[in-house]
């Protein structure tokens, strides 16, 4: 499998996509990005939160949180081109992070976890890296901190490759809510 270059979409592409998202919404429509974007917005409640965004440097969501007054750190293998006084960018593999414990109030992972550990974006392939990510999140989150997690959903677990840009893991969980309880 050819490794994708570590180049994010250009700021122009990102802005055009954002305009398309807003226009579509004005017309009563929604894209899947809009659904995920909106979910993240709705569930980040509070003021001046310390937010970690992992792996979504192709979007303006981290910038929007920074503009809203939150203290945002973007962690991505690719560079994040946006700049703001509330925004810190760390380029690298999150699994190698040196972030201090209990340093974030919220973590946002929008359509990211299904790529983790599958060798996309130039990252090394690591089996069960998604579990390691969750362990890391537990370490860096404050008590009562939140993780906003969105991903494609399917009945069966499978792997496929998208446009050579990265692997994706479709986590299927038919019956997961069985009995109406998450913790049976």
């Amino acid at each position, binding site marked *: 499998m050819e490794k994708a270059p570590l180049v994010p979409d250009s700021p122009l592409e990102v802005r055009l996509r954002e305009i398309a998202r807003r226009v*579509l919404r004005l017309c*009563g*429509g*929604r*894209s*899947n990005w*809009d*659904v*995920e974007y909106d*979910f993240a917005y709705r*569930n980040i409640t509070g003021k001046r939160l310390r937010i970690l965004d992992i792996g979504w440097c192709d979007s303006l969501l981290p910038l929007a949180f920074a503009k809203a007054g939150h203290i945002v750190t973007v962690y991505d293998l690719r560079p994040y081109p946006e700049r703001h006084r509330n925004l810190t960018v760390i380029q690298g593999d999150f699994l190698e992070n040196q972030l201090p414990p209990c340093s974030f109030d919220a973590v946002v992972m929008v359509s990211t*976890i299904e790529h983790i550990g599958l060798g996309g974006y130039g990252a090394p392939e690591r089996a069960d890296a*998604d*579990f390691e990510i*969750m362990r890391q999140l*537990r370490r860096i*989150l404050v*008590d*009562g*901190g*939140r*993780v*906003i*997690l*969105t*991903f*494609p*959903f*399917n*009945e069966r*677990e499978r792997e496929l490759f998208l446009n050579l840009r990265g692997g994706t893991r*479709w*986590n*299927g*969980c*038919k*019956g*997961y*809510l069985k009995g109406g309880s*998450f913790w049976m």
Partner: protein
Amino acid sequence: MERLQRLFEGWFVLDVEFWIAERKLLGRWVKWRPATMQEAARAYETLGVQGVACFVLSNRPLEWWQR
């Protein structure tokens, strides 16, 4: 199911939503709607596009007055 259960082990799920595509225009899905987990799980077979799952997790459960 097993992978997600393992992934969320020790986490408290505060909120969950599932979404599926609803309307296509000029080859692009332009409208999505909330769905049940079962609908989202079958979306790829029925619509040709995967459903989306959205979770809010926390390392501490919500107190009853926070729900």
